[in-house]
């Protein structure tokens, strides 16, 4: 009996190995929620239909902790990770992710423009990163909060007299310091020059201190729309996709303040020691081609990272509204991009200082 059990277990595990060798399943890790749903509709399902390769969608909450643990244990089970640019740069520096030759390994635009030229300028900031979408972190406000008055610029967020009420800000140094400087009159293009000086850092913290007692600090992206909906806060920062669904799907009385929006890029990174690198590269090539990126914008209000996808963005798949005006890329001139190199160098120090400032 025991022997039989042993042999049958062995046989079954062999069978398992054989079947695993035949059809590769890809473990693709992304943010979950509406975002992963848009990826499923735009890339996963069409790819499985086309090639038969099954995609196991795994949710995570960002960060490189799990990725680093896997590569340190030399057992990388993730084949592909959806990361923000900052994490791609960090992971690339530490050798967690595989460098990618854009022109050789990624699809060209329909008109033949090579990938490295077709991705939006300034999005290819890490050699391990294939951009997918442009999203933004922006302020939204309750449109009914101050009668007819509407905030139009970043300085209004810091104006407690004309726009009283609580502000929901993310509990992080990044973005908040930049916004403080912009509200204090620093032009968008000079923000990081100012922030790089000690005087500039003090100035940012000083400006932030003017609204400190009226800030509710959030840590989970789902919180700020909730705070505004509950009338706990009048301003909130958050990802524009979340604001879009709160405004258009849940019909909340919010409006966007695009001024000072922080544009950020989200995309794919391939773990360097993954088990199915060749297979996964085929998938990434498919998932980031012009059509697929344009398709994704039907399901979520994030801008496609390819120039050639831009004109193909059409209407929302279920709501039927024109997605053009809801793309953060439309208001790019009112926003700026985070200087990731600066934050990579100064992030540790700034976050400590920010935490100390919160304690004061």
């Amino acid at each position, binding site marked *: 009996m025991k022997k039989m059990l042993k042999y049958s277990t062995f046989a079954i595990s062999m069978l398992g190995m054989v079947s695993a060798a035949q059809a590769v399943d890809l473990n693709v890790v992304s943010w979950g929620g509406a975002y992963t749903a848009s990826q499923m509709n735009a890339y996963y399902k069409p790819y499985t239909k086309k090639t038969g390769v099954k995609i196991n969608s795994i949710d995570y909450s960002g*960060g490189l902790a799990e990725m680093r643990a896997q590569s340190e244990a030399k057992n990388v089970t993730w084949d592909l990770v959806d990361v923000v640019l900052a994490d791609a740069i960090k992971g690339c520096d530490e*050798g967690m992710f595989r460098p990618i030759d854009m022109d050789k390994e990624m699809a060209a635009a329909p008109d033949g423009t090579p990938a490295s030229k077709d991705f939006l300028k300034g999005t290819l900031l890490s050699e391990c990163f294939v951009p997918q979408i442009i999203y933004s972190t922006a302020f939204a406000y309750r449109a009914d909060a101050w009668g007819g008055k509407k905030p139009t610029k970043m300085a209004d967020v810091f104006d407690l007299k004309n726009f009283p009420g609580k502000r929901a800000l993310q*509990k992080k140094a990044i973005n908040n310091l930049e916004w403080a400087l912009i509200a204090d009159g620093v032009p968008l293009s000079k923000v990081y020059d100012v922030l790089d000086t000690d005087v500039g850092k003090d100035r940012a913290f000083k400006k932030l201190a003017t609204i400190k007692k009226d800030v*509710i*600090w959030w840590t989970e992206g789902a919180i700020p729309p909730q705070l505004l909906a*509950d009338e706990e806060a009048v301003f909130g920062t958050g990802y524009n996709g979340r604001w879009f669904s709160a405004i258009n799907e849940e019909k909340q009385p919010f409006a966007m303040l695009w001024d000072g929006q922080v544009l950020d890029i989200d995309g794919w990174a391939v773990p*360097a020691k993954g088990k199915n690198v060749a297979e996964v590269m085929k998938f990434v090539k498919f998932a980031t081609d012009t059509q697929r990126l344009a398709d994704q914008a039907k399901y979520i209000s994030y801008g496609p990272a390819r120039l050639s996808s831009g004109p193909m963005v059409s209407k929302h798949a279920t709501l039927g509204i024109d997605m053009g005006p809801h793309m953060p890329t439309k208001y790019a001139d009112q926003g700026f991009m985070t200087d990731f190199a600066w934050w*990579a160098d100064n992030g540790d120090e700034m976050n400590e200082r920010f935490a100390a400032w919160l*304690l004061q």
Partner: protein
Amino acid sequence: MANGNTQGEVVLAADGTPLKESLNKAMRKNRIRALLLVAPLFIFILFSFLIPIFDMTFRSVDNWQVGTLMPNTSLALKDWDGKAIPEEAVFEALIADLKAGAITREIGKVGTRLNYEKSGMRSMITSSARKSKKVKEGPYKPIVFKMHKKWKDLETWTVIKRNTSAYTIGYYLNAVDLKFDKSGEIVRQPENRQIYGKLFLRTFAISMAITIICIILAYPISYLLATMPLRYSNLLMIFVLLPFWTSLLVRTTAWIAMLQSQGVLNDLFVFFGFIDDANRLQLIYNLTGTIIAMTHILLPFMVLPLYSVMKTIPPTYMRAALSLGANPFVAFVRVYMPQTLSGIGAGSILVFILSIGYYITPALVGGTGGTLISNQIAYHMQSSLNWGLAGALGALLLGSVLALYTLYNKIVGIDNMKLG
């Protein structure tokens, strides 16, 4: 010798072997059986608890990066006196290391490590490594100076030299708000970067407050539970246990709905006219929120040990005290309470240690005033990826819990603790 009556005669068991031997055999068997029974638990604890703790504690002193990934530079810096910028030989070694590191793509780890000690060193290392690919021949010193201006700083070299050793106390210094200054002396962090000391103190203060509130709240409930007729006490017990069985996250979120300024509690206050609509109380996203939510969550850990101790106290003791002339208050304080001390002790230890490690609840309802040291540990584990610092903070937390436990043992005695 166990039995004096045998007077040297060996007592035999039924099968003819000496009784002692046979007894030993049976005992050994029992011991092995007992060991086997606890083995699953032991192995589980070993892998899920002890090894991770050792691993994280080791990380808090481990400093392999520079020595392993920049072996040539480390060697060349061995005899450097630290008084002036090093000689050409060091720069040659540096270029060799940067080149190798750029190919293996591991040099970023050195940058990350050094950046913990001095902001800006991450980009200095990674950008220099990128540029090093093109370097062909020396003299290397001017080439390196051109790569990044920080290479001209003496401090850069002091930091690198300090981190060539395989172990460091740097993470522990960071964890108690100290740092190395330019010349390598240990000094306090500037005022605007001191956080961990304050957070440790706050964590202990909040945990203490929660423990005391739990005692005050749990004592009467447990008394009721222990003295009421079974019918009612069972119902009451369910009320105590129901939240205990509910997910932590659900309870925390429920508190948000209750306490927020447009929430249930404030609405009631306004409705009954305790406060006016414009001055709603801020009960959440601050210290108050953390204390309320955590007290509620941890209350069962106080009620259950108290209840189980009170259940064993015979009511006759109180009656005896009363009939001997004590008034009810004196009887309660001098006869009843001392008997519940072991329950209070057990509950306090449970609540205090649990609240020291709490992090989800403070993260959600704590705002800025109510976050604890564990939130910083989680931040360094998940976001900043500074696992060395997370390890150091965790080790300090563990150390202080063990110290408090020992203190408790000295004062109260752990044998007097009753969990049920």
